[in-house]
C-alpha cells in the first residue's frame, strides 16, 4: 500500500466542541498534524486580540484548521462520494489543503504582517515547499505533492472544485470559523444548518454549487456571516487592542532603526526589523513570544514603548469616536497639531482606523468579474446567482458597509497635570 492511501490501524478522533468529533483515518493527515509546523498553530489565536473583548475567544488556528479539515472530509467522503463530477483522486490534496490552509499565519498575524509588510500566504507556501517537517511528510506521497497542496491553497490549482471547497464564498474555511468563533465568543449569531448545506452541495465542472432546495440554509449562513462581521470581527474595542498592538511593533521597529539600546534585546525581532528574516526566524515566533516581549517592554526607558506595552498587557485600551473623514479631515489635521503641542505623539496616539483594514469580507454577488458568487442549481439544471433568487441575500449584499473610527488615549487627556487647557480643547474637538 502506498503512503498516499495508507490508513491508520484504528481511526483517531479529536473531540471538538463545534463538530463533536474530527475523524482521522489517513496516515498522511495524522503525520501532518504531528509536525512541528502544524503544532505551532496551537500557539496562535484564531481571533487575535478579540479575547480582550470576548474572554472566551482563546481558541487557536490549530482548532480551526482541524475543523476545516473535518468539514472537507465530510464533503468528499459523504456528499461527493460516488458522484461522477467529482474526481476522487483529488481527495488527499483537498484534505491536506484544508488542514494546512492557515499554516503560514504568524502571531497576531494581521498586525504583524501590516508592520513588517509580510503575507501569511507566502509563508504558507514557503513552509509547504521549504525545508520543514510538513514538506518532508508531503513529499513521501510524491515529489510534486507539496506543490499541489500549495497550489490548491493559493487558488491556482487546475481542479476548481478543490479550490472552491477551500476558498470560495461558501467554503469550509468560513463555515468552520463562523461557527467556531460564535461558540468561543459566546455570541448567539454565527449558527446555521451546516449539515443541510453539506447535503445540498454538488460538484460541477469548475465550481461547487448548491441545490436550490437548500437556499434557506445558505441564507442563514449569509446572515450569520453578516452579523458576525459587525458583532465580533469589527468590534471597536477589539480594534482598539489591535491598534495598540500595531503601534507597539511600529515603535519597537522605529527604536531599533534609530539605534536605541533596548534593556531586553529583541532577539526574536532583530531580523524582522532589519528585513533579513528567514523562514526559521518566522517559525520561531508565536503569541507567547510576543507577549513575553511586551511584558519586558513595559519596563523599557522609552516612554512610548513602555506605555503602549502596558496598555496592551493590562488592557488599558484607547477610547474611540466615530469619525467621518469626508466631513472632518480638516479636523484630523488640527488634532494632530494639538496632540503635538500637548506632547502626545499623534503617530502613536491618534489613529484613524477603517473597515478596509480588516481581513474579513462580506458576500459579494460577483458583478463585473469580482469574486465567484454562490451559485444555486435550479431544478431545470440552470445555474443562478444566489442574490437573484433570495430577497434576504439581495437585501444585504452589494450594499456599502464601511466603518471609521478615531482612536486616542482618553486618560492622557483627562489626567491632571500640565497643559490642561490644551487637553480640554482636544477633548472638545473629539466629542
Amino acid at each position, binding site marked *: 500500500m502506498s503512503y498516499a492511501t495508507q490508513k491508520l490501524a484504528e481511526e483517531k478522533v479529536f473531540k471538538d466542541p463545534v463538530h463533536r468529533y474530527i475523524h482521522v483515518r489517513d496516515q498522511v493527515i495524522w503525520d501532518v498534524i504531528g509536525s512541528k509546523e502544524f503544532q505551532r498553530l496551537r500557539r496562535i489565536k484564531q481571533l487575535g486580540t478579540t479575547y480582550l473583548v470576548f474572554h472566551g475567544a482563546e481558541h487557536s488556528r490549530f482548532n480551526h484548521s482541524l475543523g476545516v479539515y473535518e468539514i472537507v472530509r465530510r464533503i468528499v467522503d459523504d456528499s461527493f462520494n460516488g458522484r461522477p463530477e467529482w474526481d476522487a483522486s483529488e481527495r488527499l490534496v483537498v484534505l491536506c489543503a484544508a488542514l494546512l490552509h492557515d499554516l503560514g499565519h504568524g502571531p497576531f498575524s494581521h498586525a504583524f504582517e501590516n508592520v513588517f509588510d509580510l503575507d501569511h500566504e507566502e509563508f504558507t507556501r514557503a513552509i509547504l515547499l521549504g525545508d520543514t517537517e510538513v514538506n518532508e511528510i508531503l513529499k513521501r506521497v510524491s515529489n510534486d505533492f507539496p506543490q499541489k497542496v500549495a497550489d490548491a491553497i493559493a487558488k*491556482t490549482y487546475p481542479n476548481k472544485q478543490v479550490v472552491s471547497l477551500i476558498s470560495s464564498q461558501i467554503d469550509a474555511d468560513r463555515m468552520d470559523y463562523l461557527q467556531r468563533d460564535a461558540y468561543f465568543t459566546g455570541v448567539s449569531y454565527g449558527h446555521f444548518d451546516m449539515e443541510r448545506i453539506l447535503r445540498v452541495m454538488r460538484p460541477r465542472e469548475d465550481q461547487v454549487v448548491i441545490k436550490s432546495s437548500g437556499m434557506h440554509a445558505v441564507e442563514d449562513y449569509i446572515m450569520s456571516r453578516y452579523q458576525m462581521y459587525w458583532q465580533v470581527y469589527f468590534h471597536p474595542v477589539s480594534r482598539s487592542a489591535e491598534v495598540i498592538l500595531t503601534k507597539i511593533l511600529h515603535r519597537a521597529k522605529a527604536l531599533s532603526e534609530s539605534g536605541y539600546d533596548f534593556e531586553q534585546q529583541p532577539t526574536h525581532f532583530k531580523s524582522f526589523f532589519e528585513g533579513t528574516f528567514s523562514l526559521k526566524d518566522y517559525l520561531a515566533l508565536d503569541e507567547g513570544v510576543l507577549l513575553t516581549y511586551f511584558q519586558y517592554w513595559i519596563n523599557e526607558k522609552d516612554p512610548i514603548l513602555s506605555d503602549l506595552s502596558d496598555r496592551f498587557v493590562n488592557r488599558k485600551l484607547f477610547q474611540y469616536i466615530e469619525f467621518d*473623514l*469626508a466631513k472632518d*479631515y480638516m479636523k484630523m489635521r488640527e488634532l494632530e497639531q494639538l496632540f503635538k503641542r500637548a506632547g502626545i505623539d499623534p503617530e502613536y496616539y491618534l*489613529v484613524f482606523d*477603517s473597515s478596509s483594514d480588516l481581513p474579513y469580507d462580506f458576500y459579494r454577488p460577483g458583478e463585473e468579474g*469580482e469574486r465567484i458568487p454562490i451559485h444555486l442549481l435550479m431544478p431545470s439544471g440552470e445555474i443562478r446567482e444566489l442574490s437573484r433568487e433570495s430577497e434576504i441575500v439581495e437585501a444585504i449584499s452589494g450594499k456599502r458597509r464601511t466603518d471609521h473610527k478615531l482612536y486616542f488615549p482618553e486618560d492622557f487627556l483627562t489626567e491632571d497635570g500640565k497643559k490642561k487647557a490644551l487637553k480640554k480643547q482636544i477633548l472638545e474637538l473629539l466629542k
Partner: protein
Amino acid sequence: MLGEHAKIIQFIGVADGITGRKKLQKMVYIAKKLQFPYKEKFEFHFYGPYSEELTLRVEELCNMGFLNEERQDKGSYVQYKYQMTDAGEHFTQMAQVEEVSPSLIACIEQMKQKSSRFLELVSTLLYFDHLPKEEQIEKLHVVKGKLNFTEEEIEEAFEFVMNLMNERAIH
C-alpha cells in the same frame, strides 16, 4: 492609513477615471508589481489577482464622496465607472501624499488604453513571475484555460510588461 486611501484617489485621478472594477483591480495590481508603493494585499481568484482590501477601500472612498461611482447597465452585464471628485482632489492635497511620479503616470496611461481582458492576462502572468517564462505560460493555461489566450496575445503581454519596466527604469 489615510495615505493609502489618498493614493487610490490619486491613481484614479491620474487615469482621469477608470471604467470597470476588474480593470481597476488589475491596474493597481500591475502597478504594485512594478514596485509602485501600493499596500493592498492581492490573492489569486477566478479572475486573476484580486484585492478585497482595494474593493473595500474604493467603497469607502465612494461613501466619503472622494470618488464617484457610476453604474452602467450594459444589458447582459453591469459595469462601474470611477472618477475622482473635487472633494477627493482636495483630500489628496490635504493628506500630503507624495506627488505621482512621471513613471507612474506613464504606466497608468498605458494600462488605461488596454482592455480588462488584456490586463487580466498581464496581471496573471505577473502573478507567476517567480517562474521561468515557459512555466509562467503553462500556469496561465492552467488557471485561464477558458479564456483561450493566443500566443500573440501572450507575447504582447510580455512586451507590454517589458515596456512598463523600461518606463519605470527611465524615470
